[in-house]
């Protein structure tokens, strides 16, 4: 057991900290992906090697060798300073690593640098009305007609489709193949004729998602990543990474600290909420669980660093535990405020910009999204514990 990162990393941390101090006035406050300040900040971070750190230089990245502890330190320091760590989104987080692994040289050169710079914004076309948990049963079809794919079908839960320039999309190209072998991974422009976007308002009353309809959308045949029928394999290069990023225990700890402050400030009948044993007990239960997830996170980091085996099961539980934990934590934030906890939108006594209610509902979305927690339990028990699979129904 050795929790020290060592002197080289301590020096790196100091360097990051001092950079943030010096340049933080140039960081964007908020704003969408097209914000000029956000794009300038991203360029500065790449130049400094703090964003796109391990992407090769020829594709517009900073070209550093992958180093888990450096990445960890960057994430920790930017988060602690509450300064933007640069652009994110599905293009940068999901498509770029996929292209690096599975893309052609031409695709890497065409897409990676503009994506990193924020000049191409992407959305992800995976889920469909009939293909949620069972994603591989997706039915949006692409049929080759000369040198174009012709796409027909519908996607759902497509975040940022209304903002995106391009989409990376799973489509069925081999209708006669087994379901996992008949899918291809296509890239195409969102302004291609035949695409219709309808916003999908979620329970927080924001339109974060969309439905996207494709009617005879024509896409050049070469805009495929991997070979025909390999789309499931291509998509799975990164699907794994998506789940655990939803459940950072250090963010949960920051949230719990904010909740503790709230419980110190909030009173009922003149008694602070922090002094009321029922509420304090709930807070402490959550604290114990966060501590466990933080230590769990260190165990997984250590396994990645030292190439330790035996953590496969441990890795599978993060998304489920982390999202359930946040959902409960945000509910306590609401509960300690009593009736005021219901405040939303334009309410004059809105606490913390309504974030307790928003996160409470948003995390219910995350409990469902990225593979529902029931699907996670199937995965944990079947892959993690080696329990028998559900028998396949005929025709499924």
């Amino acid at each position: 057991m050795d929790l020290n990162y060592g002197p080289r990393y301590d020096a790196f941390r100091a360097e990051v900290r001092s950079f943030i101090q010096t340049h933080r006035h140039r960081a964007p406050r908020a704003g969408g992906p097209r914000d000029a300040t956000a794009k300038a900040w991203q360029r500065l971070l790449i130049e400094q090697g703090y964003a796109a750190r391990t992407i090769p230089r020829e594709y517009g990245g900073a070209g550093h060798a992958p180093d888990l502890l450096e990445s960890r330190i960057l994430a920790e320091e930017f988060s602690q300073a509450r300064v933007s760590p640069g652009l994110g989104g599905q293009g940068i987080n999901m498509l770029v690593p996929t292209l690096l692994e599975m893309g052609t040289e031409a695709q890497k050169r065409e897409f990676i640098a503009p994506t990193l710079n924020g000049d191409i914004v992407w959305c992800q076309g995976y889920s469909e009305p009939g293909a949620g948990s069972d994603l591989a049963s997706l039915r949006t079809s692409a049929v080759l007609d000369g040198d174009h794919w012709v796409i027909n079908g519908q996607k759902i839960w497509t975040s940022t489709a209304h903002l995106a320039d391009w989409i990376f999309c799973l489509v069925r190209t081999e209708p006669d193949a087994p379901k996992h072998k008949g899918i291809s991974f296509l890239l195409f422009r969102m302004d291609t004729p035949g695409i219709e976007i309808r916003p999908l308002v979620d329970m927080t009353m924001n339109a974060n998602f969309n439905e996207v309809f494709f009617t005879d959308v024509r896409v050049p045949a070469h805009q495929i990543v991997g070979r025909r029928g390999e789309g499931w394999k291509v998509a799975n290069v990164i699907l794994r990474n998506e789940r655990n990023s939803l459940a950072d225990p250090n963010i949960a700890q920051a949230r719990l600290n904010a909740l503790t402050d709230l419980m110190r400030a909030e009173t009922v009948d003149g008694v602070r909420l922090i002094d009321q044993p029922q509420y304090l007990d709930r807070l402490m239960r959550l604290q114990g669980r966060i501590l466990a997830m933080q230590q769990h996170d260190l165990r997984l980091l250590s396994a990645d660093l030292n190439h330790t085996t035996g953590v496969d099961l441990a890795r599978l539980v993060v998304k489920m535990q982390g999202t359930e934990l946040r959902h409960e934590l945000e509910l306590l934030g609401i509960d300690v405020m009593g009736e005021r906890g219901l405040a939303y939108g334009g309410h004059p006594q809105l606490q913390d910009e309504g974030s307790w209610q928003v996160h409470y509902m948003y995390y219910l979305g995350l409990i469902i999204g990225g593979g529902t927690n029931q699907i996670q339990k199937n995965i944990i028990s079947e892959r993690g514990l080696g329990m028998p699979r559900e028998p396949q129904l005929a025709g499924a």
Partner: protein
Amino acid sequence: MEFGLSAEQQLLRDTLDEFLKARCPLTRVRQFADGPQDRAQDLMDGLAELGVFGLITPADQGGTGLGLLDACVVAEALGHAVAPVPFIAQAVLVPLALLKAGTPEQQGQWLPELASGKRWVGAAVSELAGARGDAGVRMQGGRLSGVARYALDFAAEAWLVADQDHGLHLVRADAPGLTVRRLETIDRSRPTGELVLANVAAETLPGANASVCRMLLDAGRILLAADSLGAASNMLDQAVAYAGQRVQFGRAIGSFQAVKHLCAQAAADLEPARALLWGAAHAFDEQHDSAHGMACHLKAHVSEVATSVAKATTEVHGGMGFTDLVGLHYWFKRIGFNRPMLGSPERLRVEAARAAGLLG
């Protein structure tokens, strides 16, 4: 940076598992639970040969000078096997008290014999974590009076006794004025009992104070959590195995989601709990500022997790889980025993809140 058990710690775990698998199957546990003996001397001697009772004792006192994390490896293995042997007091609490509060003479007199298993000691310190009813021991004129209940490693020749003012004393079984009474509990793998003291002469550890007592509690809590974690992990393994072979409606019940989700939840709760165990034991060994709070959170959290795992895995076994035939109840009760010892979850969370400066 390295988070997890070292190669040596893994070897220790494998050695223990092998020993317990061979020498302490459920039949041996039953034999102890149903028999008249209050000691499983064969197992105690075997473990002494492996050196587990001298783990934290320095080499010049006959031990190996390792830390609490190493002791946790042992405690988890013992809980996994529901082994009917002393460990927490004999191997850690009493040696730790001697090391932190004893004189060099006391250390020389006790430590080597505890490490080798020549002498067996218990710890009657429950009241440090809260005295129930009339329990509690007072020191007056150099002698001890009162009641100390729920001693750990009860079947002993001497006990470490805590008084109400954070004093620590060693009381021998043959001391005049001492009445020792066995208290039957649900957990027959670990005898416990009470010491009734009436003006009993004791060997006082002169360096004892509140912070030494807190250290003892933290160490004990971490080891109890390790024991529960080992027991709960074993219950999950048994449930997964049972669900894989029990057939109903023409299929293994483990293929039903209702059953596998119980197991998945148990695994999802146990994995982070084990990381917390390692983290808390490491913080203790480093005497990090967070050590006390982590020990409280650990024991509270693991108690809750192990309790729910014990319930769920018993349910997976259906009616058989409820019987003595399968014997799952030995693990269920082991977890039940650990839950209130040295602090129930509710009280530990209050203590954790105090450690975090949250109590007004």
